[in-house]
C-alpha cells in the first residue's frame, strides 16, 4: 500500500468513526408519533391524575409559536400551599394545528444550549407536553405510561 492509499484510507476510516454515533442515533430515532391520534387536553389531564400527579394549579396558556392552538399550564409542587414560592415542575400542554408546527416546537426545544436540556418533551397526537423545572423525577415516565395505557 502506498502512502496516498493509507492517507485516503485514514480519512475515510475517521469519517466513518465520527459518523457511527450519528448512524446509531438514526437507528434509535424515536419519531414524535402520529399527529392524528384521537385525544383531548382533558384526557391528558386525566392521565396525569391517574399517574398520581397532584396538580396544584391550572392556567390557560397559548404559546407564541406558529401553529399553537392554545392549551394549559399546570404547576406541581411537593407543597401546593407554597407553590408560588417553589413550583417544582411546570407542565405545559399545548395543541398544534399541524404536524409540521408541532415538530417545529420540538425542534425549538432541541435547539437549547449545550448539554442536557433543562426539561423533557413528550407528544400525544397534536399535543406537545413539556415538563420544565428543577425536579423532573419520574413524572415524565409516569405521564408517558399513563398516556400509553389510556
Amino acid at each position: 500500500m502506498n502512502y496516498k492509499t493509507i492517507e485516503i484510507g485514514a480519512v475515510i476510516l475517521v469519517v466513518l468513526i465520527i459518523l457511527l454515533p450519528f448512524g446509531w442515533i438514526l437507528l434509535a430515532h424515536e419519531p414524535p408519533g402520529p399527529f392524528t391520534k384521537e385525544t383531548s387536553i382533558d384526557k391528558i389531564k386525566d392521565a396525569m391524575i391517574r399517574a398520581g400527579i397532584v396538580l396544584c394549579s391550572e392556567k390557560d396558556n397559548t404559546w407564541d409559536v406558529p401553529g399553537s392552538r392554545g392549551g394549559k399550564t399546570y404547576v406541581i409542587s411537593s407543597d401546593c400551599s407554597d407553590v408560588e414560592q417553589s413550583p417544582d415542575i411546570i407542565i405545559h400542554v399545548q395543541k398544534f394545528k399541524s404536524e409540521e408546527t408541532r415538530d417545529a416546537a420540538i425542534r425549538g426545544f432541541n435547539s437549547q444550549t449545550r448539554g442536557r436540556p433543562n426539561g423533557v418533551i413528550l407528544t400525544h397526537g397534536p399535543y406537545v407536553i413539556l415538563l420544565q423545572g428543577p425536579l423532573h423525577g419520574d413524572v415524565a415516565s409516569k405521564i408517558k405510561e399513563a398516556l400509553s395505557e389510556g
Partner: protein
Amino acid sequence: MSEPVIKAGKPPVKKILGVFSLAMINVAAVLAVRNFPSMAIYGWSCIGWYLLGTIFFLIPIALAGAELATGWPQGGGVYTWVKQAFGEKSGFIALFCEWSNNLVWFPTALSFIASTLAFALTPELSASPWYMFTVMMVAFWGTTAVAYFGEEFSAKFGNFGAIVGSIIPAVLIICLGVLWVVLGAPLAIPHFSVGAMIPQITLSTLPFFSTIILLFAGMEMAGFHALEVRNPQTDFPKAMGLSTLIILFCTVFGTLAISFAVPVEKLNLASGVMQAIQYFFTTMGIAWLIAPVAVLITVGGIALLASWLIGPAKGLAVVAEEGNMPPMFDHTNKYGAPVGVLITQAIIGSLISLLYVFLPSVNQAYWILSAMTVELLCIVYVLVFASLIKLRYSQADTPRPYRIPGGMIGVWLVGGLGIIGVVCAFIVGLIPPSYYPNAAEYVFGVLLGTVLLAGPPLVFLKLKKPSWMPHENHTESGEV
C-alpha cells in the same frame, strides 16, 4: 512582538489581536442571550446556580487559560497546553474532543439561528424544514467563508457579532429589567430572600449541574488564536478578566431581568428566547423593537457559531502542521486559514444538520447526543486543568508572565475546583433521564458514542507516515 511569525510553507502570521479582540472571541463563544429564559425559570435561585458554575468552572478556566496561554503562546490552544503536559496523544485527543463535540452542537446552534431569523421575518417559516435547512446551510457555509478569509477578517466579524449580537441585546434586556423595577411594575418572581437564591440540590436536580458548567464552556477559545496576538503575555490575562466580567454581568442580570418581567408559565423551552422577549417588550409597550432585536440575536448566534467553528479548526490545523494528520488537513490558503479542516467540518456538519432537521426526534436520540457533548467537553476540560497543575511541576521554569496567585496552593485550588466541577458534570451527564426505558443501554450508548468521537486521533497517530510531515508548500497562493 508585533512582527509577523513566518512558518515554512505558510503565509506569514500577522499579529493583529489585542486585548479587546481577544476578549470578544471569548464573549462571542460563551455569552448567549438564548440561555436567559431557560435559567429565568429558576427565579432567584438562578443566582445560586450561576454561582456554582462560576466557582467550579468559569473562574478556574479563566485563570487556567490565562496562565497556559501566556506560558505557551505558540497557538493550538488546548492542544498545545495538554501536549506540553501529557504528550502529543493526549493533546490531540483533547482537541479532537472539542472539535467533535461541535459536530453534535452545530445543528442545534444553526437551528436556533434559523428560527430566530424567522421570528424577525415571518415566524411561520420556522415550521418549514426546507426553510430551516436552507438558512442553516447559508449560515454554516457563510461562517465557514468568513473563516476562509483569515484571522483579520474573522476577528472583525467576531468583534462586531459579539458586540451587536450578544452584548447589546443583553444590556438592553438588563436596562429594561431595571426600568421594570424602577417603574414599580409587578415582579413575576417572589420577593427576594437569601434562601430563595439557594438552588435545590437533589438527586433529580444534579444533572442540571452539567448544564450550568457548560453554560460557560468556550472560555479557552482565545487560546487558539495565540499566534496572532500582539502581546500574548500581557494581553491574555487582561482579555480573560475582561471577558469574564462581561459574561458574568450580562448573564446574571440579563436572566434576572427576564425573570422579573416574564411570568414563569410564559417561559417555555420549546418557544425560546424570542417569545420571552416578545412578552417582555409588548408589556413594556415597545413591541416595535422585537423584530430588530431578533435580528441582533441572530447575529449573536452567528458570532457564537463562528467562534466555535474557527477556534478548534485552527487547533486541528496546528496538529496537521506537525504531521499528525494527513496533509489534506494541513492545507492553508493565502490568508492562513485551515481550508482542509474547514471544508471537512462543513461537509460533516451539513450531513448531520440534514438528519437533525428532517428527523425530529422526541427524546431518546436527542438525550444521547446532548449527553455526548457533555462528556466530550468534560474530557477537554479535565485535561486542561490537569495540565495546569502538571506543568507547574514538569516545566516549573518556563516563563509565565501571568501566574495564578498563591503559588502551588493557588494552582491546586484553581485546578482542583475545576477538576471537581468537570468530573461531577461528567458523572451526572451519565445519569439517564427517568423515563428512559433501559438505563444500562443509555450509559453504554453515551460512553460508546463518546469514545468513538474522541478516538480518531489514535487512528491518525497509528497510521502516521513520514510523508505527513510538512516539507513543501501547501498554500493556495504558491508563495512562501
